[in-house]
């Protein structure tokens, strides 16, 4: 390594992380003790992790606490992260495992999202919704949320990763440590149940 290369490396290591810095690069820096790089990762993934946890444990405040644990735990376990592999599945895996642990401790593997939480959250979406559509949209979304709420946690995890995070079946199967076939079955089953629920409400043509 020449002196110029070494100086370039030092300069790169000490620069502030930007939006274009990859997750893996940030994780690598965090591994070397750069806490600022880690806080950038937290900012990047807080929304995904909190929402994933919320779908899994069914309570917003619990989800916030669990998500905090997830990030602190990720920080403590950074030395186990292989920075040649993608960071996202690694973090999501910590999150889902943490949620399953919580559900197991609570002794309610079949925990459902409480009914009164759904409307409160739905009425305050974090993106703009056209008021004209809102009534119909809310109706559909409430039905979807109810259906998801009554699915077992593993189904909810699959649905969230698929439809909220837009992950591929392969990524989901790696994160949740289940065969791709099972992931697909879970999605199909959720679709069937939702189809039945929508039909029951007369919301299908």
């Amino acid at each position: 390594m020449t002196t110029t290369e070494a100086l370039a490396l030092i300069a790169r290591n000490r620069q502030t992380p930007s939006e274009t810095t990859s997750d893996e690069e940030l994780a690598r820096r965090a591994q070397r003790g750069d806490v600022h790089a880690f806080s950038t990762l937290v900012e990047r993934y807080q929304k995904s992790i909190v929402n994933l946890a919320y779908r899994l444990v069914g309570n917003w405040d619990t989800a916030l606490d669990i998500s905090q644990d997830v990030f602190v735990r990720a920080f403590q376990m950074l030395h186990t992260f292989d920075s040649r592999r993608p960071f996202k599945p690694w973090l999501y895996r910590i999150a889902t495992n943490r949620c399953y642990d919580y559900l197991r401790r609570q002794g309610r593997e079949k925990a459902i999202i409480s009914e009164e939480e759904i409307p409160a959250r739905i009425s305050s979406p974090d993106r703009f919704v056209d008021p004209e559509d809102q009534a119909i949209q809310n109706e559909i979304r409430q039905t979807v949320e109810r259906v998801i709420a009554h699915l077992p946690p593993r189904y909810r995890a699959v649905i969230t990763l698929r439809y909220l995070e837009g992950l591929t079946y392969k990524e989901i199967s790696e994160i949740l440590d289940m065969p791709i076939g099972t992931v697909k079955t879970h999605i199909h089953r959720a679709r069937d149940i939702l189809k039945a629920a929508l039909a029951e409400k007369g919301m299908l043509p």
Partner: protein
Amino acid sequence: MNGHLSNETLHRYLDGDLSWEERQQVRSHVNTCAECRQRLEHLRQAEYALRQITSFAVPADFTERVMKRVRQSPTYPWTSSSVTWIGRALMFTGVLLLIVAILEAWTLSTSFSTWHDIKVQWMTFWTNVLNDPESAMYILVNLDTSAESDIAQTVLPLALALIALGGFIHMVRWITTAPTYPRHLSYTMDRGLQG
């Protein structure tokens, strides 16, 4: 194609999981079979509805709270890095040894015995240093060569080596790690927690 399409096939059609021929078969079937067309349409509606789920906004202070806990975590780099601490320990030992060596050499080279002597010697030393800086340099330079002590000759290089090694380790770590949490952000965090 005889009979209706299986539920499985419809799902796989929606997932884009079918081969080109299978897709053509499904298309031609739903074109002629109203029942299967409706089933596919309903599944599509369900898929569309599932895509409607949205995420909810996270409290603004979430990252701050996480980072506060990270800073208290036992693996926080500044408090836990063994490398840093080894470097510091080496430098600290080196400085101690250096002081011992200088005192030792100075004591032997001047041969005083009482406390009063020490004070006089000390005053003389500093008077000399202030009046004639070169003489002070002379004393320091001569410490390791003219002192009649083995300790001064062995301890002094050892002390300097320890300081250098500790400093080197510190420097390497400083270069390879980026700065720890910036002070201005840290201030914001503390204020945020009080408020």
